[in-house]
């Protein structure tokens, strides 16, 4: 239903329908080029059969020893292409590459604690909360949801290399760390 292909530099000229969404940040050009230069095999986009960009995912590989993992930096889908499982497909592809190419132990991502919809979606995809990071999203200030809006859940999903499933835990929501403790 859509073309899954690597994200390319020229896609930056075409992602307005995705990036004009309030929750999607538009970074400086060097940000995107860093990802494309270092982790081109962890950055994908989905294009509609009619040639419009629908969404993209940017990821990287980081960490040392058993913390070596794939990280989802940004995943965003344009409003008109939501509810088509596009985010799920892109995440799967990133997990596939983190597992096969990078041989990571897990894949992780950050999500606002009040973003129930997204959390549910990630849980459906096999992610679970590993810890709560205080004031991770400091830029907005405390909103109507109080700390939930500022804090982030660090959510993780094990890859095949983590046979003993050591990178996840069941009581993640209660493990609270401050933003300084995470990279």
């Amino acid at each position: 239903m859509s073309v899954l292909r690597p994200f390319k530099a020229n896609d930056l000229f075409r992602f307005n329908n995705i990036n004009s969404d309030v929750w999607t940040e538009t970074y400086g050009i060097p940000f995107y080029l860093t990802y494309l230069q270092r982790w081109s095999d962890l950055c994908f986009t989905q294009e509609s059969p009619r040639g419009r960009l629908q969404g993209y995912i940017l990821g990287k590989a980081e960490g040392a020893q058993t913390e070596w993992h794939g990280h989802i930096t940004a995943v965003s889908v344009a409003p008109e292409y939501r509810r088509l499982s596009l985010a799920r497909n892109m995440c799967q592809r990133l997990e596939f590459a983190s597992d096969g190419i990078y041989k990571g132990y897990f894949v992780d991502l950050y999500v606002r604690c009040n973003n129930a919809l997204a959390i549910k979606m990630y849980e459906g995809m096999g992610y679970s909360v590993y810890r709560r990071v205080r004031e991770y999203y400091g830029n907005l200030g405390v909103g109507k949801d109080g700390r939930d809006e500022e804090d982030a859940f660090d959510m993780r999903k094990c890859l095949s290399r983590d046979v003993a499933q050591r990178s996840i835990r069941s009581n993640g929501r209660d493990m609270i760390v401050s933003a300084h403790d995470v990279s």
Partner: protein
Amino acid sequence: MSKAALERQIRPIYDALDHGSNKSAINACNKVLKKYNNNTLVKALKALALTRSQKVEEALVLCDEILATVVTDDSTLSVMTHVLKGLARNSDMVAMFDNAFKQQPQSEELGAQTFFAHVRTGNWKSCQQVATRMHKQFQEDRYVYWAVTGAILQANDLGTPPNIRTLLYKLAHRHVTSCPTPSYMAVDRFHLHLIILQELQLWDEANTLLESDVGKSICSASLVCNETRREIWRKRGLYKDEGERAQEKIKNNDRNWLEFVSVIDAAFASVQGSDVSEEGKSECFENIAKTRDFLTKIAEVDGSNNRSASLAFLELEKNAVSHGISSDENTLVDSMENYFSQFGNKACCFEDLQPCVDLGADAKSRWISFLASQESSFATMGDLQRVINVRKLQRISLTASELSTDKELCLASTYIKEYMAGLELGSSLPVTELQPADDLAILVGHAFVSLWTMTKDESYLYNAAVVLEFALAKSRMSFQIRLLLVRIYRLLGASSLALDHYRAINIKQVQNDTLSHFILTRASTFSLSATGDLTYPSECIESSQIYVSNSQDVRFFTLLCFQDGYPPQIPEFVSFDDRLENSLQRDVVKLEHVRMRMTHEPINSDLIDMELIELKFVFDRSFANDQTLMFGNSTGQGWLWYFIKIYIRAFQHASDLDDIVEEKLLIGDRPKKSPEPEVQLPLRERLAIRKPEEAAELTADELQLMEWATALSDWLEPYHNYTRPPPAVVLAEANRQNELRTGLPLRGVDLKALNGDAHANGHAKKDEEAPPVKEPPQLVAQFFEHMHARFVQLQQSQCLPSDLLHVATLTQEAFLLFAVESHRFKTASVVKIHKLGALVQFLKDVRSKAYTVLKTMSNDLLKMSEVAGSAERRKSFVESCKPITDFPRLHHDFVLSVAKNVGESRKKVLEGVSKGMVKICTNYGQ
């Protein structure tokens, strides 16, 4: 003093530079140089500090001294890289590294630095050569791939002729195949190899590579390689094999659309090409039937979870009709109906079906009645989406003959009613969410804009604005609603409101390149910069920020790619860099900025010389993208070319910088020239080119301006050429200024060689006779009256404030261009020496006519501004919104508030432009 002691003295220089205290860095350098007057590192550091404190001339002298010797030590090279980068002297930097590497060919580090210097300047040919040399010397595989990438980039360069391109690919091929480690050892190298084979059509070799176990496994894991593999198979005509392979993948749950495309293409493989045999047709017929079965099965399994198979089914039927295999469109309509029934509740359904709606009469009426039979329900989000899809699909099927004012009004009313109903569904959503009914409000906007197009009655635009403002209050984050409002408010001349909405979208970074045209196209129409309000000029500067450091950034990352060994990204980055560097938007904004700058800065040689040089650089580029409409005409390359020609010519006349002077005075590298043949012509010839397709991008009034400016330039050119001081005089003056400023003479300017009489005063008399003074051509003399007549005619007819402002600001622009063209003849001594008194009299006549016209226009605009903000105007605004005020939620007060904002915004711009004109009249009227 020992080496250690010297180092101890150099450390503080670095520290001072790091802390940005350039002055103390210079002092420290001078101190060391007293003892070691030949130390190149210290000299380089001093040059850096000088460059950073804008003392370019002194820095250049030092640079020349340093570059005269061959620099090979790392520290000096690295400092010089910064200095030359700061001075934009990339070619010197390349030469510096080239020399160093030649001197020490055994230094791998120097080789790499030289290679990178060529990457920075985009000189791919040299990249290839340096890398080849490095490979010979150091026998490292990665240098082979550097050379290969260099060759490919050179081949892909626009200026490379096709035969050389092939030659370069062959060279790349030889490099790859002669490399001791096979390409499949790394995915990126494998990919590069495939690209080369594809270009050279070496299918057998490609086949061996792709059919090997390693090749298969790479393609199954790497999306890029698989893409190239697919292209190769297609080019070889292996549609059937590719189709079978894709079917397998689909059966194994791969739902990448590319696989479905392969399946469909396989079905039509036998009818490709121009002469299709009957056999081919019947084979295709059978294939279609088989493919139908296959897709139906997949669609059944997927259900509504995934639409790929159903969409592919649609595509299959559509192609069957377009290839003439099936003459019955009913099957296509069947599948469209099925598709809609199944996926009508998804937003993308409209886009999916859009390419299919171009049907024959019978099929179309069947499709239309199917859409009409859909019941409108607002029980769930899915139902609402269905309604929206139906309305959109109906709308794109409307033909011009079906459209009447009544019909559009009726449609608008339906859309509003349904929008209000749909709004209930999203009432509990948080403010950051988009309302699911938004598209219906946008449809209302479209209907009213279409009514305005049909009738030219601006009250329809009021209706559109009110509904969209209401929708925006419900869905604050909708950028689409805002963009539509920006367009409408600009038409209505409510430019400050347009700007507010534009800013609220929060367009950043690279988005400026693709979206700023919404607000900056022909922005000089609304700019109040003549009164000192610099809102628009600063918007231009902000939106152009991304171009400032972009090229350096991209090249830096290209360089990193080489270091890390990721060649496949490199052509991408280079193409990205090219697109940004040659962005049409960048230069349209640049020109718009010049147009505004002239209204608020004094017209003197600083402005004229600088803009002349910059616009000439722009004129040497070629462009990639296209832009938006305003006044019904796009501001594309044609528009830009026409306006640039006006300005370059006017500035050229007014400037003393002829080519010789420019060559001497301009520091740093010139931008790359576009390889297009037209760009290679002499500037004079290029400036005279007029093309109808380019002219088509101008409005009628802009064309008038163009013709007038051409006539004016033709008339005055001989006098300018005669009066312009000779290069030697101009350079002598520049030299004098420079000596005053820096105590140093200009470098590289040998005044004596240029002209023996450089010491003569500035207005050297020429030997030849002064050209006889001619009357101004009629076009020049009557232009301003003509524009006035046009202005009056617009006032009396139904026209938008933006149209009126367009004419007024173009007249003002002509007046300013006239000021530029007559600038030289302002100086009494020039006129006296060259006996141009009669010319000055003619100029005076034209100027005074123009002055009167501008004054009248200014008065009229001022009167209009008072009306625009009045209570009556608000009242009539509200009254003309009758078509929508029946809806209780669009109540009187809300409409009034929009009316008030629009009125105030219009008042502001009309008043501002009027006052600006007065100011310009005062400055240049005498």
